[in-house]
C-alpha cells in the first residue's frame, strides 16, 4: 500500500518537474519563434518591410492587417543603434523585443511628441560607457537599454482603410536603423576609460 502511494507521489512530482522545466525552457528552445521566423527575411541592423498580413502569408500568426509593419533585427555587439522613424499621418509606434520575444519597451508617435521618433538603443554596458557630457547633451534624445544584445524592433504604421496601406508602408520605408557611425568617438571614449575610474562611480 505504502509502496503504491509512494509511486503515485513520485509520479506526480516528476510530472510537475517536467511541466515546469518545459514551460520555463520553451522560450529558449523554441525554433519557430518570431525571431527565428523573421531571421531569413530580414537584414541585420537595417529596416526591412514585412509583407502585409494576408491569408497566404503564414509568416507569423495574428498579424494586424490594418498596420504596415517593418522590422529591424538588431545586434548591439558592434555598437549602439540609432533608430529614426518618421511619424505617419495616422499612427506610428515602435516596439522593442528581446531575442526571446519579451516586449520590454514600446512608444507611439503621440508619446514621442515629435515628427520623427528618434531613439538610441544600447546595452546597459554601452549606456554606462557613455561619456558623461554626452549624457547631458542627450537630454532630448531618448536612450533605451536593451536587456539582450540581440532582438527585434518592430515599427508599425496604421492604414486607416485598406487603400491607405501603400502610404503607411512608404512612411515606414523612410525610417532607418543602423549602428552608430561615430565609431571614432566611441574609440576615443574607450581609450581614456581606464584613466578616470571615478566617472562610472559618480554616475551610479
Amino acid at each position: 500500500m505504502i509502496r503504491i502511494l509512494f509511486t503515485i507521489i513520485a509520479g506526480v512530482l516528476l510530472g510537475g518537474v517536467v511541466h515546469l522545466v518545459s514551460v520555463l525552457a520553451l522560450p529558449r528552445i523554441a525554433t519557430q519563434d518570431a525571431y527565428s521566423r523573421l531571421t531569413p527575411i530580414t537584414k541585420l541592423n537595417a529596416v526591412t518591410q514585412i509583407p502585409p498580413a494576408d491569408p497566404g502569408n503564414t509568416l507569423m500568426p495574428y498579424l494586424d492587417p490594418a498596420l504596415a509593419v517593418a522590422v529591424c533585427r538588431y545586434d548591439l555587439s558592434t555598437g549602439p543603434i540609432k533608430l529614426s522613424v518618421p511619424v505617419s499621418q495616422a499612427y506610428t509606434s515602435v516596439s522593442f523585443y528581446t531575442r526571446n520575444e519579451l516586449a520590454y519597451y514600446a512608444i507611439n508617435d503621440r508619446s514621442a511628441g515629435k515628427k520623427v521618433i528618434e531613439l538610441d538603443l544600447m546595452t546597459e554596458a554601452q549606456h554606462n560607457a557613455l561619456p558623461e557630457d554626452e549624457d547631458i547633451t542627450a537630454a532630448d534624445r531618448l536612450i533605451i537599454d536593451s536587456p539582450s544584445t540581440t532582438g527585434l524592433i518592430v515599427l508599425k504604421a496604421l492604414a486607416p482603410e485598406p487603400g491607405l496601406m501603400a502610404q503607411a508602408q512608404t512612411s515606414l520605408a523612410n525610417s532607418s536603423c543602423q549602428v552608430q557611425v561615430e565609431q571614432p568617438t566611441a574609440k576615443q571614449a574607450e581609450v581614456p576609460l581606464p584613466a578616470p575610474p571615478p566617472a562610472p562611480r559618480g554616475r551610479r
Partner: protein
Amino acid sequence: MTTTRGTELGTLTIGAWTARPRIGTTDIDPYSRATITRNGELPIGTGDGIAFTARADDKKKPLDGRCDVVVSGVTPAARFWTLTLYDNKGRLVANSLQRYGFTSEEIVRGADGGFEIHIASRARAGNWLPTGGIERYSLMFRLYDTPVGVATRTKRDAPMPQIATVGCP
C-alpha cells in the same frame, strides 16, 4: 496543451472578450511566454496597445462562420481600434473582398455614433466581415494608444462591444 491554448493566469475578461495585459510587459507570465514563442507571435507592447480575443459570443456559443454574428455597442477609450477575424491558427480567412477586419476609422456608423459589424458568410448591408463559411473562428479586438491595460479591472474601465449570434442556417 497549456502552451497552445493558454491559461487563465493574469487575464482580463470583459463580456466575451479576454485580454492578457501583462503580455506586453516584462512581467509576462511563463505560460504566456511559452505560448508566444511556440506560436511565433509578437505580443503588442503595452505602450502600443492591447489585444482582446473572443472565441464565443456573449452567451458562450462558439463563433461559427456559417452563422450570422453581430458585433455592436461601445468601445473603450483609444486613439483607434481594429477588429480582425482569424481562423484557429491565427491566419486571415481568404475572401473575394479581401476584407479581413475593420478599423474604427473606416467603419460605417449610425446617426448616434454606434456601429454594427455583421459577420457572416454571405454579403450583408453595412459593415460586412466575411467568414468564408469556416466552422470556427476567433475575433481579435485591438486598442491602440489606450489607457486600457494592466490597471484595468472592470467593464466600467473598458466597455467592450457585444457579440450576438442572431441566426444560424
